[in-house]
């Protein structure tokens, strides 16, 4: 399927391994990515805090650019924060024709216009709702057997439920569990899996921010997770890049690798950890690499008649 692809800022900045691994994984899932390289930052909720109309207009521009992509079935992003920030703007734009016309008037100078009803899904949602878990399962080449994975969703992709379209039909706040399971991994439940990573207040209250990250990672360590997986690069910054400081703040050793969702999917689809940018993590995903090497070794042994 062809999608208008919004990679966000951080996946092309401080977490380049996310954008890179998405590019590697997409062809294996028959997803054609048409990158929205003309679009701007969603504002991550902060521009909306500064000026709601400004955030709505900037995101309406992105939506309009997505609607111009020929043959694209929907818009896809790989960032929980982008998903949440865009969903908030889209909710207002779709709810009120007068407001939409007002915003479109600003976009008219560029010849753009947003039409109500864009479908915008995070990669996680697309995996479950478009590709389907059975199809995903069928494409797995290296099941994540015996790999204990703790899901970390990120706030923006699980709350508020109404805005994000979470209900009994589409339990999107459970999809990470379902995907880990479909990839053959063992889901590790722990207290912080749907809580806040603390990133939004890292410059305002660093101690509280790192305490949040440290506690959740610590909970996952106590639950014996081998790694965490997250669909949010901003969560990744606090959970991985800042993990050494988070460990100091909560006064315990953590050392828990944190994978981006496309990395975990890529691993199960048979890609090499090197191709997925594992070496760029601050907390080296040694346990995951050791696991994948032993699995590859075992399957190579099996195929050669050992």
């Amino acid at each position, binding site marked *: 399927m062809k999608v208008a692809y919004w990679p966000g800022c951080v996946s092309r900045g401080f977490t380049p391994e996310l954008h890179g691994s998405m590019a590697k994984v997409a062809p294996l899932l028959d997803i054609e990515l048409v990158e929205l*390289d003309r679009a*701007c930052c969603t504002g*991550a909720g902060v521009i909306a805090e500064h000026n709601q109309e400004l955030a709505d207009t900037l995101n309406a521009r992105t939506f309009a650019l997505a609607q111009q992509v020929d043959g694209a079935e929907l818009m896809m992003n790989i960032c929980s924060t982008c998903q949440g920030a865009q969903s908030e703007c889209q909710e207002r734009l779709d*709810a*009120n*024709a007068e407001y939409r016309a007002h915003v479109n008037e*600003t976009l008219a100078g560029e010849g753009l216009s947003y039409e109500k009803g864009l479908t915008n899904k995070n990669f996680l949602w697309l995996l479950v709702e478009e590709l389907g878990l059975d199809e995903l399962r069928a494409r797995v080449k290296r099941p994540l057997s015996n790999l204990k994975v703790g899901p970390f969703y990120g706030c923006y992709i699980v709350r508020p439920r109404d805005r994000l379209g979470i209900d009994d039909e589409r339990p999107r706040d459970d999809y990470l569990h379902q995907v880990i399971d479909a990839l053959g991994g063992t889901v590790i439940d722990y207290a912080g899996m749907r809580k806040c990573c*603390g990133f939004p207040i890292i410059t*305002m209250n660093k101690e509280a921010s790192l305490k949040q990250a440290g506690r959740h990672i610590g909970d996952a360590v106590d639950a014996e997770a081998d790694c965490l997986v997250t669909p949010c690069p901003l969560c990744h910054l606090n959970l991985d890049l800042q993990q050494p400081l988070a460990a100091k703040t909560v006064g315990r050793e953590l050392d828990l690798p944190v994978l981006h969702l496309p990395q975990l999917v890529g691993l199960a689809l048979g890609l090499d950890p090197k191709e997925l940018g594992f070496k760029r*993590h601050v907390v080296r995903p040694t346990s995951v690499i050791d696991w994948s090497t032993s699995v590859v070794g075992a399957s190579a042994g099996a195929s050669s008649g050992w």
Partner: protein
Amino acid sequence: MAETTPTTAAAPRTATPEQFKLRMRRYDPESGDAPYWDEHTIELEPHRSVLEAILQARDRFDGSIGIRCSCRQAICGSCGVRVNGEPALACHTHLDAALKSSADGVIEIEPMGNMPVIKDLIVDMDAVHWTKIRRVTPWLIAKQPVPEREYIVPRESMIDVTQTMACIQCGACVSDCLAMEVDPGFIGPAALAKSYRFVGDPRDDQQFERLNDLAQDPEGIFDCTHCFKCVQACPKDVNPMGQIMRLRRIAIDDHQIVDQNNGERHEAAITGLVRNYGLLHEAELIPRSYGGNSWFAKFTPAAGKELLSSLPVIVRGLLRGKLNPRIAIFGHKIPSDDLKAVQAIYDKVESRDRSSGQRYELNLYIVGEDEQ
């Protein structure tokens, strides 16, 4: 907004009673015993409330079960609890809905979080919730001179504060506030929503003073971690986090309050960087959030100190190839024509003046959705 909103309004009144299992968290701090789980099976029609189930368990099996309640119709805010881990009013949660959201067929009921337990399902609202409400001066400080008769205020400005007036002080948002979980001193969602009630009231004389106080407090409006927990928890759709964002907006943009917590600088940094680059220039975010919205911010003492303390993180990021030196220095930009278009949007929208009513803010709580 809360997921436990009743869905069985159409349930037939002749529904027959069914059995439901309850698992309640029991705790009496005065006993010296540890908390424990207590299970009872009650019998009620599925559309009846969790509160009725608790009361039946108390009447039939154990008169010592502690629960606070009064109106039984989601008005008084007394019976806030956690049902299957989520905050809810016990009287506003139907048994069939609660059963559906249970993990193992047993409806789990706990006291609210972030507040000390007095007994079983009763928490000490005074120690946390009401103390925080008092913190924000929750009354009108009238402009002088007070008119002889009534104040005349525009209808729309009173409609603007109706959302915060819908709060029934149940404490559900306080219970689940993730910032308060790590920083108990955070003023919190309910009290900050209450403060908007007066900040947004044109009769109040202390808008600047209220906002300056809440912005300068390290545990004030900039301590909110934007997790939407309170938005989800509120049974009355007060949207406390949305009110906190409005407090920030008015503090920064209408009063130009520069706080000591980097709140204003952080907002200016992100808004300014997106204006200059189209994308977030992450390497500039920390220095500008500490030192001000300029390339030279990194040479200020506040930013220098923070950068120095982050040096191990920066070096590790560079060594791992996480931080590309070129992007770290120059940032990444969208194509120049697009950047110009983005900047034109900034110019047009930011030139609208709030005081003249040109700034367009859409509150769906007030206006609702189109029918189309």
